[in-house]
């Protein structure tokens, strides 16, 4: 059916959108309801003065009724059909589809436009990863230096009697290459870090929110003294590029404010100075739950706490919702973390405080004092399943760390091959 024969369908569609009865429109246009009914079912052609009158009542341009959906929409629908890769039997009825179901047609066209945009983004990112000259140069440098070190070290280790001249030369090369490797590795890490910064973070709300907290050292004096609200801070944060990041940051700041009101900085500071960091004692003293204490301890300035502190919060799926990094304790940026973290022990034992000394594998492995607990996110109704979240405070320099529990960051980068908790192979082939 041609576009201009669907004027009646468009009149009906527009009338229904406005919630107008047929008799009402007929009266306003000076025609009978039965005649309008014939027009709306495309059984009478309409034009001229009557079309102008009906368009006026419906509040649209006459051409919107006579020409229907815009040519661009039709064109997009044709593109969508062509790109689908399957024969579309009703392609010749695209005008009719757009005319009779303009809302659905627009949904389809918008979906097609979005797919095209996303495909372009995927192509750009893939191309960037594959051909980015900076990334390629950095990776090439790292691998070439690693190759040189491997060959040289192997010669030194495996060649029985090596002439002093060669030995000295290889020692010198090894020294040069190890320096180059540290430089090129640092450049690579720096490149990857920069890659995820600023506007490029768009679309990763959690990263934006964490970057915002990081910029503020995880402490917000304006919330502590009441000179700003979470809304103010989230609204004015220039680092937050999207609504999702703003909303997420707002929720985190609300939690921050609630914890700060429960455990005011000055009083908390006095308690820490007097009795040290004892979360259970602090929970009793401030008459609050352990989760609030653990979160709050990670939010006070380092000079108040007397040491650095990291924090992780997860939901019932184990997904990390919040990360405050701490030196020496690796946290995965993406994907799941190590299931051996005390955080997850706490998650399966709600309301039970869990304290473990842990150590992560690595060249400079250090022990951490981890305190965790899980709490019910909200009081469930009868018959409703409770939802839990867990929090873990991570303090460097565990006391009494004679036999710390080995943990990792995530399976992909954990060298501990024979781990009962391993869920996927590691990219690291050998123990450090």
């Amino acid at each position, binding site marked *: 059916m041609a576009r201009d024969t669907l004027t009646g369908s468009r009149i009906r569609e527009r009338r229904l959108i406005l919630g107008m009865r047929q008799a009402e429109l007929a009266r306003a246009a000076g025609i009978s309801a039965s005649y309008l009914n014939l027009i709306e079912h495309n059984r009478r052609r309409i034009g001229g003065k009557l079309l102008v009158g009906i368009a006026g009542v419906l509040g649209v341009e006459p051409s919107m009724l006579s020409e229907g959906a815009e040519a661009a929409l039709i064109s997009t629908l044709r593109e969508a059909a062509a790109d689908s890769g399957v024969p579309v039997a009703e392609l010749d009825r695209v005008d009719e589809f757009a005319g009779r179901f303009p809302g659905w047609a627009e949904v389809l066209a918008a979906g097609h436009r979005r797919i095209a945009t996303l495909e372009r983004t995927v192509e750009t990112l893939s191309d960037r990863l594959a051909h980015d000259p900076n990334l390629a140069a950095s990776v090439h440098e790292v691998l070439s230096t690693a190759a*040189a070190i491997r*060959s040289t070290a*192997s*010669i030194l280790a495996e060649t029985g009697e090596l002439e002093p001249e060669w030995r000295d030369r*290889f020692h010198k090369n090894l020294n040069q290459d190890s320096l180059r490797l540290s430089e090129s590795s640092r450049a690579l890490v720096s490149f990857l870090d920069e890659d995820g910064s600023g506007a490029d973070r768009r679309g990763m709300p959690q990263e934006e929110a964490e970057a915002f907290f990081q910029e503020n050292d995880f402490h917000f004096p304006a919330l502590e003294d009441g000179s700003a609200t979470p809304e103010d801070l989230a609204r004015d944060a220039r680092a937050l590029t999207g609504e999702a990041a703003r909303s997420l940051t707002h929720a985190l700041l609300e939690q921050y404010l609630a914890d700060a009101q429960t455990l005011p900085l000055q009083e908390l500071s006095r308690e820490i100075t007097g009795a040290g960091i004892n979360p259970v004692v602090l929970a009793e003293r401030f008459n609050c739950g352990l989760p609030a204490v653990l979160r709050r301890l990670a939010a006070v300035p380092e000079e108040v706490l007397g040491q650095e502190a990291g924090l992780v919060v997860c939901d019932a799926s184990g997904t990390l919702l919040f990360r405050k990094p701490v030196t020496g304790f690796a946290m995965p940026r993406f994907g799941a973390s190590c299931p051996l973290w005390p955080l997850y022990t706490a998650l399966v034992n709600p309301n039970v405080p869990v304290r473990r000394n842990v150590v992560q594998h690595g060249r400079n492995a250090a022990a951490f004092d981890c305190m965790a607990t899980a709490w019910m996110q909200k009081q469930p109704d009868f018959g409703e399943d409770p939802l839990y979240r867990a929090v873990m405070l991570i303090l460097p320099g565990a006391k009494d760390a004679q036999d710390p529990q080995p943990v990792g960051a995530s399976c992909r980068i954990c060298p501990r091959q024979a781990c009962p908790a391993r869920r996927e192979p590691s990219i690291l082939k050998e123990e450090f």
Partner: protein
Amino acid sequence: MGRHVVLIEDEPNITEAIRFLLMRDGWSVDAHTDGATAVEVIRNAGPDLVILDLMLPGKSGLEIVRELRAEQDMQSLPVLMLTARGQMRDREMAEKAGVTRFMTKPFSNAEVLTAVRDLHAQAGQG
């Protein structure tokens, strides 16, 4: 008669390690760093085998191999390509260009030695 290899690699310490290994294995090693002059160097040296880096200043390893393969007397010259790029697509491109064997960095000395000996034997010169 001594076995002769031309090594085109812009990483001096890799060159030194490979030179040491191959010399101990009885090879004479002619090492160069510049991709632009590589074809000429190889043509003049007439080696038993070529070890070539993929990413070289002046001209890429793939271009060098293509140019070599275009010459009648270089068709069967064994070429071992060393590269930090080990994706399937890179391997396919190398194979298409005429590379005899492809080895990704970082490699072990044993792998290099085995590859060189195998290629030499396969070429019927061992």
